[in-house]
């Protein structure tokens, strides 16, 4: 029997699963579905080509091996989809493979009672960062001097973004360039800016945290490193082992050391990138002016709100005419101030508000820069535990009723319901 904190090398026993690093993740998902531990798996599938990732709800276990292992161009955020289109998993049990940002988003939405985590099994995937599809294609054409359509495999390994492709003569070629080299340039190549700042590389918030870091020795390339992170994760692992869906062995001590080193190096790089990117914003008045200038590109489309895993209010304050003139474009800076005030304490740096902003406002950079300051001030670290930030104490409908009953619009007045 396994327990939280245990670590294993695990690999699939199925010949149908062609996982690159042992295929344990695919096996866990398939096992959970086949044994009715879940009703469905929300998986990432390859769409038009290698650069296109899409979400799909899979209910047939035989379909699971067709889901993509990992696509570095998959910059999707699955948690908000579960909230919006699957009723927050309230009446459906699902298993979901998650990157760090996905796992954090699940936690933040669960805190706000928008997702029922009891019905969700999170299979964490180590993530060194993602690259937006079109950036990846431009970068491959420009820096690798390779036709993006000839690439059949991409990976991020040992600090490099590596592609496998067929050259003009049809010969298999392999080419890697150091990520920091790619990210240094003015073109904006490499991983998404928020991924560069990320410090959630092994998502231990999930039930199992899986990846290839630390698989050393004879199992190298043939097994997945699995860290058990919860009782739910332990139960899934034990069940899959018992049913011979996966086999496991103890990790090599040297492997543990390597995994630790990879993670530490990634975290250091994340910190370095935070320092660099936040410094670019300047400080004080300069920072404010920069934010005001860039947010004046806003067209008020609300894509940032629609895609934010923290935003869930039915009645958004930014849509209230007495706070924001709804006909003015660009909207008043107050639009952005409301967003900052309401969600900056809980920003998990998933990057969606920036990646999906039609006018390319660096929203995530602004929000994340504030979150790290708020974390220093109040000690609240979003996305890792179920601890509530002050603003999440309230259920919206109840809170509005409470406010209404006070006859005042003072949000903090009598917030703990004490007798007057």
């Amino acid at each position, binding site marked *: 029997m396994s327990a939280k904190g245990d670590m294993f090398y695990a690999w699939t026993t199925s010949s149908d699963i062609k996982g690159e690093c042992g295929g344990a993740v695919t096996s866990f998902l398939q096992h959970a579905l086949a044994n009715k531990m879940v*009703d*469905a798996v*929300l998986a990432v599938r390859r*769409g*038009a*080509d290698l*650069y*296109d*990732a*899409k*979400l*799909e*709800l899979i*209910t047939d276990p035989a379909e699971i091996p067709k889901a993509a292992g990992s696509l570095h*161009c998959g*910059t*999707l955020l699955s948690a908000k*989809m579960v909230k*919006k*289109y*699957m009723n927050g998993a309230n009446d*459906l049990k699902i298993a979901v493979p998650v990157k760090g940002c996905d796992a954090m988003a699940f936690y933040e939405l669960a805190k706000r009672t928008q997702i029922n985590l009891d019905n969700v099994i999170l299979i964490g995937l180590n993530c060194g960062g993602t690259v*937006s*599809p*079109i*950036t990846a294609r431009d970068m491959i054409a420009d820096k690798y001097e390779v036709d993006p359509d000839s690439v059949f495999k991409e990976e991020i390994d040992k600090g490099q973004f590596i592609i496998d492709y067929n050259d003009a003569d049809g010969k298999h070629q392999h080419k890697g360039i150091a990520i920091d080299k790619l990210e240094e340039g003015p073109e904006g190549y490499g991983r998404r800016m928020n991924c560069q700042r990320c410090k959630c590389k092994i998502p231990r918030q999930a039930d199992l945290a899986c990846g290839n870091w630390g698989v050393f020795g004879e199992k190298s390339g043939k097994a997945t490193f699995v860290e058990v992170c919860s009782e739910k994760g332990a139960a899934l692992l034990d069940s899959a082992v018992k049913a011979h869906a996966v086999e496991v062995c103890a990790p090599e001590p040297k492997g543990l050391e390597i995994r630790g080193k990879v993670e530490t190096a990634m975290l250091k790089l994340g910190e370095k990138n935070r320092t660099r990117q936040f410094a670019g914003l300047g400080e004080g008045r300069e920072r404010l002016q920069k934010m005001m200038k860039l947010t*004046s*590109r806003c*067209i*008020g*489309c*609300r*894509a940032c709100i*629609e*895609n934010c895993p923290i935003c869930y209010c039915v009645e958004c304050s930014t849509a209230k005419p007495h706070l924001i003139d709804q006909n003015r*474009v*660009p909207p008043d800076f107050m639009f952005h101030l409301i967003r900052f005030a309401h969600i900056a304490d809980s920003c998990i740096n998933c990057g969606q508000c920036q*990646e*999906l*902003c*039609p*006018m*390319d406002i660096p929203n995530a950079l602004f929000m994340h820069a504030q979150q790290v300051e708020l974390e220093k001030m109040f000690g609240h670290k979003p996305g890792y535990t179920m601890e509530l930030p002050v603003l999440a104490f309230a259920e919206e409908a109840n809170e509005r009723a409470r406010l209404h009953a006070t006859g005042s619009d003072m949000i903090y007045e009598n917030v703990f319901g004490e007798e007057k």
Partner: protein
Amino acid sequence: MQLKYVATTCPFCGTGCGLNLIISDGGVVGVAPYHRSPIGTGKLCMRGLHAAKAVGKYRIEAPTVGGLPTDWKKALTEALKLKNYSGEDLAVYTSSRLTNEANYCIMRFAKEILKAGTIGTLISGRVARGNVRINDLKKADVALVFDDCMKRFPLTGNKLFYMQQNGGKILYCGEESYTAIQADAKCIEDADGKLVISDEFKNILKEAKNPVVIYSTTGKYAELAEETAKSCNAKTAVLYDTNNGRGAAEIGFIPSLDTLKATEKVPKAMLIFAETPMFMDDIYEELGEKLSKVELLVVVASNASSLTDIANVVLPVTSFAESEGSYTNWEGRVQKVSAALTAPEGQKSPCEIIAELSGKAISYKDTAAIFADIKANIPAFKDVSYEQVQKADGAFIEVI
């Protein structure tokens, strides 16, 4: 429960962003970003974000004649009375929102069978072709933008932020607007609505290495923009308000709304393929009085509107996302449109309706067959590969 993504092209403006429709249990429930779109890279404006609503709720369930529901056979017989009219008495108007394939079938029917005197689209503006690609806007060094194009076409407009970041300058001409706020320099029209482009602007354009003039076919200053581009030797990005305005123009439909509004001599019979998808504005409302004078008004539509209210014959048609094909965006990129949904029972696609009306004279086995015919007969499409159109990057109708 079922949930999957179907990648398609946005049904709103002529920029042509890709988007994923989220299909759950047979219906469109929302829109998810399609990061692989070479134009939008997953980003969408307020219109694209709500494309799920474009299918429309007020579907016409059955064909009608004289306002009363009937069967297809009777309705088609009644519609074919259009053949009793010809030349100036007969007009065929299509929607520049339909696919290239649908519009090609409609064009053939209007020309070959009905021999209609007027064949057009019910939009204003002019037919014009730019000579720059959307992503090349990022590499321009000066962009002269007319009207409020950055706001009207957000995912075209945002390329100018990349240009600015690369050291390029945005010049603006028009009313005070969103674009004026983003611009590095501007010429604002005076209180009488008069606009004079400064000599300084012209000199900047003339001296630039890679200047581009950006305007919309329906813009107030379209003509002025065209002249300025010519005199300053700048490239042009000509933007279309509708998702397939450029495609409809290439197939030969003339924007006819302004002519129809102005004329006293309204054709006696009309076949109108109405706007589909469902939009907030009923563009036919202001034409109501004029159109009610038409002797025989046959309308093909998916949703009820003021137009279907006054039609003699209404034929229900599939809506956006219910039939496949392609759109041509403003830069001439032909992109795939997917059939993400099954049409409600009793609805036919525009091509099926044309097949019926033409007694199978204009009938194809599939979309690929229509496309092959377009390729053979419409010069702009002669080098477009159908296979390439199916891919994420689409295919260009002409090499610039």
